[in-house]
């Protein structure tokens, strides 16, 4: 089989780029959820960011301002959600859906005359000399500023939540809004700030799609990425560091399926490789606590890998409709959500206790 189209280094670089919008949006949503608010409008905020970032960059010619504009616009959109849920006490699930529907429509309206244009490019941060160093160069130094910014944001959010008083207060508000109110904290104001922050990061994530990743504006271009960002927050058990892991996983799946589509490869061979990889990872992760049960699991995964390999060798011309490959990121999301939701105790300990509940100060 010909795997030359799958250059591992290039794959990793493009997966990190593909993961960046997810890192941004999921980190923002994590802060929102930590404050006890469930904003399902990430998709709507991202598409707004995508269109506003694109328009500002094209009109002014400066992508940095584009990102800033995207952050502001999506934060403003998020504040509509905040006003409705925090002041007018509307249902968070319904309002989040409304935000997505509204955002998709408004973005399509605003972006009408911007389809088919190329935006000004967002250059790499480091000089070419550095990024062409073998292996390390492309891996570490070949990105634009937003990639680094996103990773720094994750660190900053971790530091804020765990090491500062402000972060403690935010977590307390998410844990029990009535108790936080009784202590004299301004629940609504704190949540509004978190919602705006979440909106800003989602907007930047969206702008990254239209300005760097694609780079072009088209209607509905977020294609569910905002929802995947929501799933990543669950995957990450509300821990910032694990957001990166989740985003890279989904970025990896997306990039891999795109490359397989492009290279017109035999999916069975890929499946064999992927399953073998899973088996190895399972073995490595659990090597210290191997039980009979786990060994059987690993052997089973490995035999599926062998089976796939045999099938691949028997039908070297097997090709799947590309539509099936396009399903994989969404199916992966579902599988990961299921795998994680099994562990109820951990979820109960990490999920903010007042997530999604309506707060009205009665006193």
């Amino acid at each position: 089989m010909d795997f030359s189209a799958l250059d591992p280094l290039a794959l990793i670089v493009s997966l990190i780029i593909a993961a960046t919008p997810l890192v941004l949006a999921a980190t923002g949503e994590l802060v929102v959820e930590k404050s006890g608010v469930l904003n399902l409008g990430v998709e709507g905020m991202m598409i707004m960011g995508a269109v506003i970032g694109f328009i500002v960059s094209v009109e002014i010619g400066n992508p940095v301002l584009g990102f800033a504009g995207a952050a502001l616009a999506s934060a403003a959109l998020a504040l509509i959600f905040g006003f409705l849920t925090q002041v007018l006490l509307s249902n968070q699930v319904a309002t989040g859906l409304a935000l997505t529907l509204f955002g998709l429509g408004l973005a399509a309206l605003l972006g009408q005359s911007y389809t088919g244009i190329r935006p000004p490019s967002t250059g790499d941060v480091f000089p070419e000399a550095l990024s062409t160093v073998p292996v390390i160069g492309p891996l570490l130094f070949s990105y634009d500023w937003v990639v680094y910014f996103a990773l720094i944001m994750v660190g900053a959010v971790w530091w804020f939540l765990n090491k500062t008083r402000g972060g403690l207060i935010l977590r307390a508000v998410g844990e029990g809004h009535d108790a936080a109110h009784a202590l004299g904290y301004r629940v609504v104001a704190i949540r509004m700030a978190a919602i705006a922050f979440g909106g800003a990061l989602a907007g930047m994530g969206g702008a990254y799609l239209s300005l760097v990743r694609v780079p072009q504006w088209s209607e509905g271009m977020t294609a569910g990425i905002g929802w995947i960002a929501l799933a990543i927050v669950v995957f990450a058990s509300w821990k910032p560091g694990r957001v990166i892991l989740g985003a890279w996983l989904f970025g990896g799946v997306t990039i891999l399926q795109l490359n397989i589509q492009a290279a017109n490869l035999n999916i069975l061979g890929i499946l064999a490789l992927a399953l073998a990889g899973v088996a190895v990872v399972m073995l490595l992760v659990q090597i210290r606590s191997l039980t009979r049960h786990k060994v059987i699991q690993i052997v089973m995964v490995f035999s599926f890998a062998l089976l796939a390999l045999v099938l691949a060798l028997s039908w070297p011309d097997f090709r799947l409709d590309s539509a099936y490959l396009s399903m994989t990121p969404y199916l992966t999301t579902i599988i990961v959500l299921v795998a994680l939701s099994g562990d109820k105790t951990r979820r109960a300990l990490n999920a903010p206790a007042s997530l999604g509940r309506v707060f009205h100060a009665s006193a």
Partner: protein
Amino acid sequence: MLRLEPRRSPSQAMVWLTPILAVLATMIAGGGLFMALGKDPVDAIYTIFVDPLLDPYSLPEIFVKAAPLILIAIGLSYGFRAGIWNIGAEGQFIMGAIAGAAVGLAFYGTAGVWLLPLMALAGIVAGYLWAMIPALLRVKFGTNEILVSLMLVYVADQFLRAMVNGPLRNPQGFNFPESRLFHDSAQLPILFDGTRVHLGVAIAVIIALIAALILSRHIIGYNVRLMGSAPRAAMFSGVKPPRMVIFCLGLSGALAGLAGLFEAAGPMGQLTPTLPQGYGFTAIIVAFLGRLNPLGIIAAGFVMALTYIGGENAQLALGLPKAAISVFQGMLLFFLLGLDIFVRYRIAPKRREVA
């Protein structure tokens, strides 16, 4: 300064007044939007909301559009009441259309009155099964049904592409990604000659009426309302939450699947990748606009269909962009959710603080 004061009991007047206020507020804000787009606001609003009602071509089209919206929204409303959030109705709609169409195409050319019921059954079962994925995952593993049902929309959409590119593609279609046109026995009968108003419209309204009856007078409806109002009290009463999840998701999946089949066997007459037009999402707005009440949903379905048809007219007559109608519908939901507060709270002047 003004402040919110809880009412002792929800205002029944407000329950029905808020959707009307929301529509009015949307007209005003929408007028502003159209003005910003350089259109005459009064003209645009008139074109969207009044013209279609007077136009003999548009009026029946409203019924055609309203049918799938009502069917899907009815199913969603039960779940939304019980706190079970199926937002993947679009996916169930697509799967229903595919399954129903597959049956119709399998018996291509075979005449018989049994074919349509069989297609409808296939649509219902496919929608039901597609909804069972999030339902069973939530029941067995506690997986969030919002995310799973939504992810499955994208999967269903890709599956439709694979189908019209593969097994269900028209063999005489020059490799176009479309199915054959259904033969007569596989097409929904038209109720009024010269229009596209099909049998599905009547069925949608009948189902809504049955749903209203069950909600107010049957133990199933009572349990749905109880579950949404006080989950712990529902369990104390004897409601089993897993069954409720399966029932609500299954019902909405089945109705969305039926709506999908109606769309394929009705106005479309074949399977194409453009079949999904976001009815599954718009139906969420319809469900809320109708106050999650089946009778309200019938009315809301027609109002929403009116904005679609009126929007299309405005596109042709005034050059109003298509997306403007989506914004318009989004605004409607925002206003509705915002105004909803007046059902439970009233605005009172802030009491003067002691100096």
